[in-house]
């Protein structure tokens, strides 16, 4: 009886709230159709096929509340068919996926006119950088498409934001931990260093297990605070997050022989370490040049030791520290400027990409973008979009990556964008992009907003 009564009372309260603000606007349904196809230049193989229907629904209740949801319905990838039996199963022949990106209610002026509350699955976007944000760590990364920098998963959270004049104070409580989504297909390999085995050993098969945090408040929840405002013409903020790294860390490996030729079976265990992140950002202008900067200090909770159990192949158990209990510092600085004639240039320097941990493991990324609209904004050209990565300045020629991404976007009408471009990658060393050097690709995408 009690379990029935509680949700019933809650429903009445929520219903009462919305009836109280009956000056409502109609539901607004909007979104986009997005087709993204990519083919590898080296061998002509398709490497990406995404057909996305992005549906968003908004409803405002006067100036007191807003409901928002965003759902992706996607036909993604290619069917992996090896048996005629699969042809009877449409889930196999037409793989699809439903992703609730956001679904929240935002209440304005709760308790006091200056306090807003947002409850539900939401994106808590922090940082002043352009798609590269070392301070944006409340939501776990959505790295499914490694080229869609800055994409994060929504978190089931409660956010309170108090405004006073040009300043704000924000408190976020993230109810459940959501691990990051990892890149699809062979893009994932770049994020994780492969396990090196002494010859003649080689991995025949492997299995891993994830140690997910316990489903309780202490282990599964996170919280964050942020304060900021406008002073001296600059927007600034300071932030603190007590959360978990959304990318798993390998803490245990066991190797067992499976044949006499050196073939082994690998068993791995991974977990999501707790960490604190102290951040700061600012944005403003120097003269007429737009400038921004971000910095985050990542403080691990513990040292992380990787245990390699090699007893199965007649060797001892080897422990090695893979992450010292020392903070590391990621930062970004950037500027943009529009020259006469509409020539837009944006430059960013980043120290430490999303997956990098430990001060000595952070690489340098220089990213430049030049774009110009032509023919009454019907054509956008990006002839110089590039990134240069250095993973070791002392041996630069062996530790670098260069990614060149020229794109052309045709805009036949306000709602449609058709883009073509290439990603050309060169590099050496173990940086994530250097490992993609054989993955040059041609990209074709279409976006229609409705």
């Amino acid at each position: 009886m009690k379990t029935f009564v509680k949700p019933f009372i809650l429903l009445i309260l929520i219903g009462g709230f919305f009836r109280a603000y009956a000056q409502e606007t109609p539901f607004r349904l909007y979104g986009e159709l997005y087709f993204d196809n990519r083919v590898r230049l080296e061998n002509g193989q398709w490497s990406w096929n995404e057909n996305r229907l992005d549906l968003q629904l908004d409803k405002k209740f006067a100036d007191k509340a807003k409901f928002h949801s965003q759902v992706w319905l996607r036909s993604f990838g290619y069917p992996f068919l090896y048996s005629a039996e699969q042809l009877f199963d449409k889930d196999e022949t037409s793989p699809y996926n439903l992703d609730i990106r956001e679904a929240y209610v935002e209440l304005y002026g709760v308790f006091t006119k200056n306090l807003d509350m947002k409850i539900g699955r939401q994106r808590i976007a922090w940082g002043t950088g352009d798609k590269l944000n070392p301070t944006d760590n409340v939501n776990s990364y959505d790295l499914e498409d490694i080229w869609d920098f800055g994409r994060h998963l929504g978190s089931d959270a409660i956010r309170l934001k108090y405004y006073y004049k040009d300043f704000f104070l924000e408190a976020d409580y993230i109810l459940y931990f959501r691990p990051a989504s990892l890149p699809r297909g062979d893009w994932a390999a770049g994020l994780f260093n492969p396990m090196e085995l002494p010859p003649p050993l080689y991995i025949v098969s492997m299995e891993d297990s994830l140690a997910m945090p316990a489903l309780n408040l202490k282990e599964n929840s996170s919280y964050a605070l942020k304060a900021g405002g406008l002073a001296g013409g600059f927007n600034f903020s300071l932030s603190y997050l007590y959360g978990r790294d959304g990318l798993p860390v390998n803490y245990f490996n066991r190797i067992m022989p499976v044949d006499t030729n050196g073939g082994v079976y690998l068993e791995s265990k991974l977990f999501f370490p707790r960490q604190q992140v102290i951040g700061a950002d600012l944005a403003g202008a120097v003269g007429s040049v737009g400038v921004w900067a971000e910095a985050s200090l990542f403080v691990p909770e513990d040292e992380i030791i990787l245990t390699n159990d090699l007893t199965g192949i007649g060797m001892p158990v080897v422990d090695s520290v893979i992450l010292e209990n020392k903070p590391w510092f990621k930062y970004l600085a950037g500027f943009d400027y529009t020259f006469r004639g509409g020539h837009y240039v944006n430059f960013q320097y980043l120290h430490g990409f999303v997956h990098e941990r430990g001060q000595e493991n952070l690489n340098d990324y220089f990213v430049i973008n030049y774009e110009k609209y032509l023919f009454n904004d019907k054509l956008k050209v990006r002839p110089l979009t590039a990134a240069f990565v250095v993973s070791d300045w002392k041996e630069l020629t062996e530790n670098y990556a260069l990614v060149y991404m020229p794109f052309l976007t045709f805009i036949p009408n306000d709602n449609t964008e058709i883009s073509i471009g290439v990603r050309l990658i060169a590099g050496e060393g173990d940086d994530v992009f250097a490992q993609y050097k054989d993955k040059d690709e041609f990209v074709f995408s279409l976006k229609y907003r409705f």
Partner: protein
Amino acid sequence: MKKKTLFAAIILSIYSFGALAQGASEILKKTDDVMYAPKDQKASVKIILKDKKGNMQEREASYIQIGSEMRLFKFTAPASQAGIAFLSLPGDVMYLYLPAYEKERRIASHVKNQTFAGTDFSYDDMESKPLGDEYNPELISQDAETWKLKLIPKDPAGSDYGRIEITVGKDNNYLRSADYFDRGGQKIKQMVNTTIEKVDGYWTATEIEMTDLAKGHSTVFKTLGLSFDNNLTAEDFTVREMKK
């Protein structure tokens, strides 16, 4: 005697020039006073973009404004633009909100000479600061109905225009049209207030057409549901309001 005549002519011309300049300043001040008389304004607008082939695109937006330095502009249509908002605050503090990124982006004044959201207005044109703050006026000519003034930027380096020539109605001191010239003296844009009417006791342009002469492209702003003196406050011009 000749010297005296020449001296008198010079004195007279200096005096006349001074009188004209003073007249021009007064005209411009009255124009600014009329155009910025309301304490605040609130409106929705229909924006029609026309290219030289006659193809048209429509956009819809709403805006609120206090004086000349606080303005919040939100696009409501088409779908590709809906939700995009632009907030302009004193001290060249400007924010752009793109719903797809779910956060505001601070933008610097380098955008001022760029076109505003595909229209023929630049961000600078949209700021609608009193002309007297940014330009020194000269009276070029006049007829029974209008004055024609030449406006020279006070800060030539900071302006996209070499000069602006404006026509002001004598009946209401309201701006009727403006011709924009580049630094080389070439006329590049033309703005015409095609409909000027009295709303809530204030003269206002409810239809404005800006033409980019080089591109042969024009933008018509049709103001709908305009209201003045709505008791707007600085709290209505915040990032919080921009994102709602």
